[in-house]
């Protein structure tokens, strides 16, 4: 129903893998570069993630207005909400597009396990899948739709590798093999290590280096 589609990033990953923290890290970097984002958070059992992002990114840091962070309940089926039946997400995205057509992107977060989580192309144009190393270094090798099909694979909590016996070189090797050299990034969302590289992928591979809308408008 919207007049112009705003580019949409889907960020998926298992519960506790660091999706919310990744968003909290990339939004300020994108904001520094002039890019404005809205966020839709598909929660499994609470609005906690949406409330946290609203507080951190909107109320405290003023990087966006509070109505640009929306929490959405999924009836316990986050996979369905972003893949088989994304109706509710699409409706909320379109409402956001109508109200805030000056946004550069809309970020859609959803929990979901490694086997089935993907985003419908009708919902998201670019798909980031995030896992954490504490699941073991076998994780990329075991494949799954999320790991194989995402546009960018993010492997988080690399600081924990030494404590859980995960070999990062094995994870990198297997990620390259199963993803046929599509990009991946090793990150530590707690310290911000590797996060800038994620935003560079977003600007280059997803936005194709387009300038922020506000900048483009001023040029005209």
């Amino acid at each position, binding site marked *: 129903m919207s007049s112009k589609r705003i580019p949409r990033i889907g960020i998926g990953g298992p519960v506790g893998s660091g999706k919310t923290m990744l968003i909290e890290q990339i939004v300020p970097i994108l904001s520094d570069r002039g890019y404005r984002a809205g966020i839709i958070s598909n929660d499994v059992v609470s609005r906690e993630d949406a409330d946290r992002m609203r507080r951190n990114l909107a109320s405290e840091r003023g990087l966006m207005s509070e109505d640009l962070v929306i929490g959405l*309940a999924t009836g*316990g089926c986050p996979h369905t909400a972003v893949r088989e*039946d994304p*109706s*509710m997400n699409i409706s909320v995205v379109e409402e956001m597009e109508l109200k805030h057509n000056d946004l550069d992107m809309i970020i859609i977060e959803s929990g979901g396990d490694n086997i089935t989580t993907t985003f419908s192309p009708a919902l998201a144009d670019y798909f980031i899948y995030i896992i954490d190393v504490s699941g073991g270094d076998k994780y990329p090798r075991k494949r799954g739709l999320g790991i194989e099909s995402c546009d960018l694979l993010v492997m988080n909590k690399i600081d924990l590798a030494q404590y859980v016996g995960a070999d990062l070189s094995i994870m990198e090797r297997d990620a390259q093999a199963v993803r046929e050299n599509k990009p991946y990034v090793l990150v530590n969302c707690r310290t911000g290590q590797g996060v800038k590289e994620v935003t560079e992928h977003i600007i280059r591979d997803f936005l194709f280096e387009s300038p922020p809308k506000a900048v483009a408008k001023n040029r005209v």
Partner: protein
Amino acid sequence: MSIEKEISVDEISILQLSDSFFPTGMYATSSGLEALFYSKKIKDVNELRDLIKVYVENQIGPTDCTALGNSYEYAKRADLKRLIEADQTIFSMKLIQEIRETSTRSGTQLLRCMSYFITDNELLNKYQEAIKNRQASGVYPVALAVASSTLNIPKRKAGLMMIYAFSVSIVGAALRLGMLQHFDGQKIIHELKPNILETVNNNIDRPLMSMWQFAPGIDIVQIAHERMASKMFIT
């Protein structure tokens, strides 16, 4: 073979629109049941069945089913003005904000999906245009009426589809909340069949302005659910 020949494409359309695989997002709603689950107000499967009867007979039946019946007639006559009136009336009767929004989102997405494979129906296109121009909301019973009329699904069967799907959505929510087991869910649906039929028969042909609802206990539960900080379902 003769029986198979009597089955029309329109009947397959009934199966398509009533299938939970059809994308309307309704699987994410519990109509407030989740609040009752956490407050331990539902003791057993029989109480759950009786609760769904109240939902159907006192809330959805005399509102959504009547709105659907009238909207279906307006859609058949291609009377967009009356259709928009019905849309605005049923929208204003939904007391809980989250239920209003969800009904509107489901209805709008139903129409969008329909117009992906039905591109030449004038009323379908005009109603969507009215939603885009904010003259109408796209609330679910009216959207389903337009969709059913477009696919030549008979009015009464459209009513059955809607009340059945609503009942199944609550049973599905109860199943995911762990309130019952899968065989119990099917038993409840079976036992509700006479109530679903009677509700449709009582409400599908009534005038739009005779819509009513009286389920204050459920209204309060739905308000409480809407305000819950931690929840799995949309109200």
